């Protein structure tokens, strides 16, 4: 196990972190819209949202990635590997995050919403200034959890041609015949990344003012 091999693993880890963070962010934006739609009483909003959530939670991420990579070109959408990877991870995490957020939205006390309306906030202001911040605060630990899940799931994107940490470790292990130090290093790198994510999460949680509504 030389410094060169470790450097290669670290470079691949940058791909892992980059793809995961971008996907978590995009997924979060989609999740807010999805959870809002899922909470709607009108079928035209909640039906597509429920369908989306059940598909992306019900189909293995590996299959989703392969579908996005090889099925979409059939209908004329040919995306490069990196886009397929980010789209796959984003849509999958969006479904999970939407369910977390829905739980959060449903836990916002109705009295607070009524109070907001009484003080003259319009529905949009009530949504973005009252409901979203409270729901976020309530679901923040679950969001950090999801971020860690996606960081680990990103090891699957090598099936669409992305060289990330796991794939690099496999390639190096098979060419150097040093599987144990290489996979141990990869495990250590994942552990460090996820520890940082969970530390940042805990810090952010504290500055958000805890989980009290």
């Amino acid at each position: 196990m030389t410094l060169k091999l470790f450097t290669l693993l670290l470079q691949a880890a940058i791909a892992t972190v980059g793809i995961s963070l971008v996907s978590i962010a995009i997924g979060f934006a989609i999740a807010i819209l999805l959870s809002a739609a899922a909470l709607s009483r009108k079928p035209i909003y909640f039906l597509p949202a429920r369908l989306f959530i059940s598909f992306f939670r019900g189909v293995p991420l590996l299959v989703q990635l392969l579908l996005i990579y090889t099925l979409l070109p059939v209908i004329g959408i040919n995306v490069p590997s990196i886009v397929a990877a980010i789209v796959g991870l984003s849509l999958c995490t969006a479904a999970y995050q939407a369910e977390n957020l829905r739980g959060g939205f449903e836990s916002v006390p109705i009295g607070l919403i009524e109070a907001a309306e009484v003080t003259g906030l319009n529905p949009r202001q009530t949504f973005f200034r009252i409901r979203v911040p409270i729901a976020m605060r309530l679901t923040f630990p679950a969001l950090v959890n999801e971020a860690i899940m996606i960081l680990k799931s990103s090891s699957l994107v090598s099936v669409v041609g992305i060289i990330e940490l796991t794939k690099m470790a496999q390639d190096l292990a098979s060419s150097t015949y040093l599987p144990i130090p290489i996979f141990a290093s990869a495990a250590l790198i994942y552990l460090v990344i996820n520890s940082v994510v969970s530390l940042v999460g805990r810090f952010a949680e504290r500055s958000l003012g805890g989980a009290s509504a």
Partner: protein
Amino acid sequence: MLKRYFLKAALGAALFAGAAISAPMAAHAADDALARIKAAGVMKVGTETAFAPFDFIDAGDHVGLNVDFFAELGKDLGVKIEWVALPWDGVFPALEAGKFDFVAGPATITKARLERFKMTAPIAEATVAILKKAGDKTITKPEDIAGKAVGSGKATAQFAQLQEYSKTLPKPVEAREYVSFNDAYADLAAGRIVAVANSLPNIAYVAKQRNGAFEVVTPAFGKKSYFGFIGKKDEDSKTLVDYVNSEVIKMKKDGRLGKMQEKWFGTTFDTPDEVKEPAF
């Protein structure tokens, strides 16, 4: 209430997606696959990077006969080569989905593949043989694998050959499929299987690399076969396939291919210019 904002956002997202899709569509305007590659200045080649010595990662660098061959081809054609590395069972679906222009692989030229794809002139021999652990006295000839656990690569012609050979033995072998041949070699080293069935150039290279650990069992048991590169069969890819094919012949004639074989296999192969009737 908030639904109106949801609708607006959804509309925006749809527009954005539409714009992202239409960009690559515009590139399809040129004549055919070869013309588009020339216009773009880039040829995309799909491959699996776990097939030493044709295609593998050597301490982080993508190397092998494929890399050398397509580097020469890129020079001749005046384009850059862009590699897309996938697991082998994902390579052909991705070629059909248009993710890249050509497949390096290489793949054994078989009847089934010729029905679906176009294959170039052979670049090396592909006849299948057995790799065993060095000093394993229980296997001295191919038929000794009868009734034992033998590994090969998933979705490979080598695996098909192993299964076919197994039927001719007194006791069928316990054939195990691996995502890549590298995983099979690892299990051979770990003693979970007693042999790996793969093409001679590959296992000869592995035996040499891991000096002392593995041995090739001769003679080869498979039918005589060859490795070629793979392109699409449609009209759009015709000139491209013809071009890559002419490059194989050209490099064979001017000695560049021979040098590559010498470099990666330590020997040269006498290959035909065309395989019309594969053995299987």
